[in-house]
Every structure is written in C-alpha cells, then in structure tokens.
C-alpha cells in the first residue's frame, strides 16, 4: 500500500482541511469564493461609478473644469506603476507554481514596493489638493473655481480614489501576509492557493484604477 502512489495518501497533506475530500476540491472552492468576492467588489465600486456618471451628466461643465486641477502626469505615472505591479504579481504566482521560493519572495517584495510607490505618489497628489482646499463637499474651500459646483467633482474624486486607496492598503496587507508565509516556507508546487488568490485580488485593484484614471483625469 505504502509504495504505490496511492491517491488516498494526500489525506495527510497538512494544508487539507478536514471537510474536503481532496486538495483539488479545496482549491476549487477557494477560487469560487475569491471570484465571488471580486464580483462584490466590482458592484461596490459600481455604485460609485453610476453615481459619478449621473452627477457628471447633471453638471458636465463643472466636472470638465474641475478635472483640470488633477495632475495627468502623476496619474499616468501611477497607472504605469500599478500595471508593472500586476506583472510582478503574475510572476510571483508563476514562481509559486514552479515551487521557486526565492523568486516568489523577490517578486512579492517588488509588488509590495510598487504598491508603496503608488501610495506615495497619491500622497503628493492629495496633499496638493488639500493645500488648495479642493476637498470633498462641505470641506471645499477653493476660491478660484471657474464653474460653480466644482466641489461635486472633488467629492467623487476623493470618494473613488479614497476607496481605491483603502483597497491598495488592504492588498499590501494581504501581500505582506503571503510574503511572510512564503519566507516561512509554507508554499510548494502542491500548495500555493493563497498566492493565487491574493494575485487575483491585486489584479482587480489594478483594474479599478485603469477605469478610474480616464474617468477622473481624462474628461474631454
């Protein structure tokens, strides 16, 4: 019994939870769960996107005028930063699949650093807006607005990029957790589900930014 490559042996895998019959079942369940979670995230942001669309329709001039205060260069730079971080995340997952622990750790560190760069650039953008008084709603105190109602644009700018920023922070925590487990040596070719799932989440965070960038920075 012991020398045959019996499929029953995987019952002893330490990562297999008691209520699953085999690892593949556990992986599939985890992936279904993650995809459903991503759907809820899309719907959560969807509410803000719809709100933005409707308010943009009601106040087109104010939105067009207000968006000139955003720095397109920094926005584009951040887009590139996140795209590259998505690439490093893909490489991290590939490294995990191949069981290359050193590579996995390096790519995770790279992704984490790029996320940090994104937040740093966002910090400079935010502090400029805050300094000028271009704050959401009731806090808005900018005096030189060309069209009345520009505050509404900044309401959405801060709500949407703020919620996205929170997701970046959550992503960094998740990547940090996976990194710690990678250093500890939890992952192998046979078990790398957490890397996979965090990767999926990180791509979603990137994708939301891909939509936010033209919506907020490139109104024509």
């Amino acid at each position, binding site marked *: 019994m012991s020398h045959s490559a019996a499929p029953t042996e995987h019952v002893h895998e330490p990562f297999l939870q008691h*209520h699953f019959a085999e690892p593949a079942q556990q992986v599939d369940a985890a992936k*279904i769960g993650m995809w459903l979670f991503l759907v*809820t995230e899309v719907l959560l942001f969807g509410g803000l996107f719809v709100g933005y669309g409707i308010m943009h329709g009601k106040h087109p001039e104010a939105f067009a005028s207000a968006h000139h205060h955003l720095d397109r260069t920094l926005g584009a730079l951040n887009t590139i930063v996140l795209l590259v971080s998505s690439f490093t995340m893909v490489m991290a997952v590939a490294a995990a699949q191949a069981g290359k622990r050193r590579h996995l750790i390096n790519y995770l560190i790279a992704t984490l650093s790029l996320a940090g760069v994104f937040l740093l650039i966002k910090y400079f953008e935010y502090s400029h807006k805050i300094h000028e008084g271009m704050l959401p709603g009731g806090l808005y105190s900018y005096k030189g607005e060309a069209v009345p109602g520009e505050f*509404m644009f900044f*309401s959405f700018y801060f709500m949407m990029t703020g919620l996205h920023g929170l997701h970046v922070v959550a992503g960094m925590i998740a990547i940090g957790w996976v990194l710690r487990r990678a250093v500890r040596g939890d992952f192998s070719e046979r078990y790398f589900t957490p890397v996979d799932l965090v990767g999926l989440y990180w791509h979603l965070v990137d994708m939301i930014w891909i939509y936010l960038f033209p919506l907020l920075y490139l109104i024509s």
Partner: protein
Amino acid sequence: MADVLTAPPETGRRHFEPNYLNERRGILSWLTTLDHKRIGVMYLWSVLLAFLLGGIFAMVVRMELLTPKETIISADAYNKAFTLHGAIMIFLFIIPGIPAALGNFVLPLLIGAKDVAFPRLNLASYYLYVAGALFALASMIFGGVDTGWTFYTPYSTTTTTKVSLLTLGAFILGFSSIFTGVNFIATVHKLRVPGMTWLKMPLFIWGIYATAIIQVLATPVLGITLLLIVIERVWKVGIFDPALGGDPVLFQHFFWFYSHPAVYIMILPGMAIISEVIPTFSKKTIFGYKAIAYSSVAIAFISFLVWGHHMFTSGQSDLATAVFSFLTFLVAIPSAIKVFNWLATMYRGSIDLKAPMIYAIMFLLLFAIGGLTGIFLGTISVDVHLHDTYFVVAHFHYVMMGGTVIAFLAGLHYWWPKMFGRMYSESWARPAALLIFVGFNMTFLAQFVLGSRGMPRRYYNYLEQFQPLHVFSTIGSWVLALGLFMVAGYLLASLRKPYDAPANPWGGKTLEWTTASPPITHNFERTPVLTHGPYDYSPQEIGR
C-alpha cells in the same frame, strides 16, 4: 434507516453519547467554534432575540394606533418605534433568519457534507452580525432613528437622529450576509456528496442557492449606498442632497436596486423550506421538481429588474414605469408555478397534519393573498391610489410575515428535533398555530381595508372613521403575540427533557434524517451514499 422510525426512544443512555452539542463544553467552545451546526444555533438564538425586540416595537406601534390621537407615546417616539421595528425585523431577523440560522445548520447535512466550504468565514459572518447588531443597539440607546427603515434622502441626510450609527450597522450586516452567500455558493458547488447531481439536490438547496446569488450580487450596492449616506451626512458631498445639486431619487434607485432583490432574499428561503416540508408530510414525491428548482433561479433573476415598482410616484419616466410594471407581473409566474406544484404534491398524498405541515399550509394561504395583492400594487393605475397606504403595509406583511416568518416557523418545527434532539409538544403546537393564524389575519386583513379607504402608512394621528379597523388590527396583534409566546414556551420547555427525538421523526427522505438527532460533530459516521432521490416515497408509504 427504516427501523429507526419504529424503534422506541432510547432516552437515558443517549445523553452520554457524543454529539455536536455535548462533545465540547463551555462558552469558549461555542464562541470559537467552526462547526456550521453550532454557528447555526448561535445565529438562531440571535435572530430570535432580534425577532423579540422587533416584535416589542411592533406591539408599541400597534398600541399607539389604538386611538386617533396620542395613546401611549409621543409622535417622535412613534416615528422611532416604527423605524426600529422595520430595521430590526429586516436586517437582523428576516434576512439572516432562514439562510444563516436554519440554512447554516441543515445545508451541509442536506448535501451530505461535513461542513460549509469556509468555516472560518462562517464564524466571521456571525461576528459581523453581532457587530452590526451592536451598532443598531447603539443607535437606539443614543436617541433612535426616525427615517423609516428605507432611510429616504434628503430627510435621512439632514435629520439629527442617529442615522449614521444605524446605517453603519446595516452596512456591516450586509457584509455578514455576503459572507454567508459566498460560503453557501462555494459549498453547493464543491461539497455535494458523490452522486448528488444538481437535479438530485433537495429543493431547499436550490432555494438557498438562488438566495445566495442575490445576497452576493445585490448587497454590495446597498453597502455603498449606506456608506454614501454616512459620507453625505458627515462631509456634505452633495450626491443625494438637492440643495447641493444632488439627486434624492438617485438614492431611491440605489436603495431599491438592493432592497427589492432583498425581498427575495427573504422569501426564497421560505419557499425552500415549504418545498421540503410538503413532500415529507404528504409522503409523496414532489410534483414538478424541475419547475420548482428553476423557478427559484427565475425569481432571483427577475428580482433584479423590478426595483422601479417602488418608485411609480417618484417622477421616473412613464416608459420606465410601464416596463417596471410589466416586469413585476412576470415575478408572479414563477411564484405561482411553485404554489401550484406544492398543491399538486399534496393532491392524493397521505397528509399528516403535524406542526410543520400546519405552518406550510398556512404559508400557502397567506402567501397567496400576499402575492396576489402584490399584483394589485404592480398595476400602475391602482398603485397610484394605494401607494404609501396601509394596503402596502398589509401586502408586505402578508408576504414577509405570512410568507417568510410562517415558513421559518415551519422550518423551525421541522428541524427542531434534529437540531436539539428533542420533540416538542404537538398538542401545544396546534392551538398556538391557530392563534397565530387568527391573530395574523385580524391584524393585517384590517389593514388592507384601511389602506383601500385611504389610511396613509406611518401616520401618527388619523381620522376617527378609521378607528374601528385600527382597534381590530391592534387586538389581532395581541392574539398573534400570544400565539408566538406559546411557541416560544413549548419549544423552550422541550429543551429541559432528555433527548427523545429519533433520527427520522417525520419519515423524511433527505440526508439529514440519516444521521443521529442531534448529529455528531462531523455530521455523518461515514460519507453518506445516495440510494434514492430526495423525495422518493414508495406507494406503500402513501398508505393507500
């Protein structure tokens, strides 16, 4: 397992056999449990507590309406009482009631699994529920909320009552609901016992699965909407407040985009229970299995397309109103398909009027009234007259209380022996059910009449001509409350007895009846083997 049916109850000895209730002891073993059965039981006591609290507010509201002017409380207190009644009943009782409490317990058992796919997420969902409930409690303690459970803007963004606390509570409860939904979908997809194909699943699973899909797809939109109310209140961002250039009707669209599907989050699990109870107590194979299964999914799908019927008088376009009205009629088709199939199942069956079946039949009667009056309200010309009257209140309660709560009671009585290993008193259950039926109809039939005569909902004072019907309705609410207290009494009394429930007290054919009552921690001694479909009753069992 047939011999279990006839075996005499083995009392004393069974108390020492390990089961999920007694294997581990102490409060910590409950608070840290990952067992779906224990989480289901914790949910059950929590939602019942919420039901009691929401019920007390309902009694206060009904008492206040006994006379046309002030009866027991001020107008402000009245506004807060009906708001909290609605918010507690919806967010803390009905939405988690069947899926998270009963569903958590029986869903893995019904598909022969050891647990749900993500046990830790399951426990997290319970703690989020508790956190959300604490927020709701805090909003009550610090002054209450007077917006109605719908939180309509711009009033909700300008009133000084504790709207932010209650909406944050509902936001957190939303995530609790999403976690449960994600868990159940993954569980149904991956943890069915070998051989249980989709069309061999018990119908309860179909109903809960359709519910879970709505929970996952609709709740995030409510989440962001409630968050936007809080942000609007704190930072005056302007999205919903017309004074700032915002759009209050946008809030209604957002709110009903969730809250209409949410009505099906509440009713589909009720229908799911009825689909189990009726075949078991008719000893007959379910009629139209596929029709019932697919109609659950159809209801879930259509539910996303009808939110505008709450807004016929809000100024949305005539075209939108006509389309929403038509789509609303469509919901009646899958609902009626279910009702006719249940009736056909009972036809020439060997009907056993035990408590769960009494409630199931009560469900059929009350849901038929609730559903048909929904058609009245979906008709534009009629709705313009009945909008925001007691007719809407009565319709809603016939579906939600006459439908979901009665189905919840059916399920509670059906699975109580499985959950706690004890039989309750059938001779107490019957008069209690009668009181509930009579009290419920007294309370809410009167409100149909009130509404059709023009009594607006949520009003504190009313014209003297409405008083007789209001008095009738209030007396009905006392009868109803008495019946519910009787149920609580005999159910709790059963817990003082030693275990006396056989594994299969009703002669059910689904998998949960093949394991002990109460089940062992791992649910089944060994992975169950499917030998027959969920409702395969032989002709002998029909007893003809």
